[in-house]
């Protein structure tokens, strides 16, 4: 019976669950997400041309203030 085996395995010593295998591409995707966060919150001309960066800054302006990232 399943119940008898449960008694033999105290919850706090067993690894709590089968872990989820994270493939390598997931870490690449995480890096892309971090880059996207940089882009919308901090990009001010390091990667874009000055007019494009200023346009981006103005469009994301209110959210940058709300998110608390130093804006200007």
């Amino acid at each position: 019976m399943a119940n008898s085996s449960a008694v033999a395995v105290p919850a706090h010593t067993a690894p709590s669950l089968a872990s989820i295998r994270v493939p390598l591409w997931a870490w690449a995707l995480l890096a892309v997400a971090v880059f996207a966060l940089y882009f919308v919150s901090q990009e001010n001309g390091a990667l874009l041309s000055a007019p494009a960066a200023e346009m981006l800054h103005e469009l994301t302006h209110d959210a940058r203030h709300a998110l608390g990232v130093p804006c200007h």
Partner: protein
Amino acid sequence: MINFGSVLRRGLEAGVAAGLASALVIWLFVEPVIRKALVIEERRGASGGHGGHAGHSALFTVPAAPGHVPAHGGDLVTRTQQVVGGAVTSMLVGIAFGVIFAVVFAKARHRLAPHSDFWRSMVLAAIGFGAVTLLPAIVIPANPPAVGDPATVTQRTWLYVLALLLGVAIALTVPMLDRLLARRGFLDGARWSVDVLVTVLAVVAVVVVLPGSPDSVPEDVPAALLWDFRVASLAQLATMWVVLGAVFGLLMERSTGASARTADTAGERELTSVGA
């Protein structure tokens, strides 16, 4: 074993929900304060005082046209576009957080203490809020328009990033310490006490050691406006984390719920075999 792709899909869905919720909070609570701050900026421009922001970027400056009030956005975008742009931005931020959350959750799931995926997700969201939102917000609080010297923006940005990285470092180090203490045979109560004490000391050390913002708040910005803005900013970020954690947790429960509930009562080993 749960497929990572399905976890990622839930992360994206939860991220969309979190982005929508935070856009709503920005619209309801942050925008009214921004409007008040923009009035202050315009008054400055009209009285020839600080002259608003001639250029407000770390890396380039835009000269103000003579005789023109350089209000926010200038001629480049309208206020409406800025408000819509802010909502779109918070959506993108929510989705990016959803992706990162899914990856970290998948990696950390077996180490998160609660017995249901909902509470595991909520615990991870609480840790994320503390590490990457609250700690940077205490070191260098959010400011409305009309506050912030463009000349110091690079320094403030580094301070913000440093606080965020130290928050993540604390969030990674304390669980490692916890496992070390567990291996040494510490009792649960003693171990958790050490965890809390180390966390508090580390956070205090970060706040004390890192310098504050180099800017002083201009005299024409009322303290109440600053406070309202910072509370609204934290409300928006807290909303994003809570919705992210709750929606992701509920979506995880829905898939694993049926098998997990029976397995949880039958014991952890049972669940492992079901999941595998």
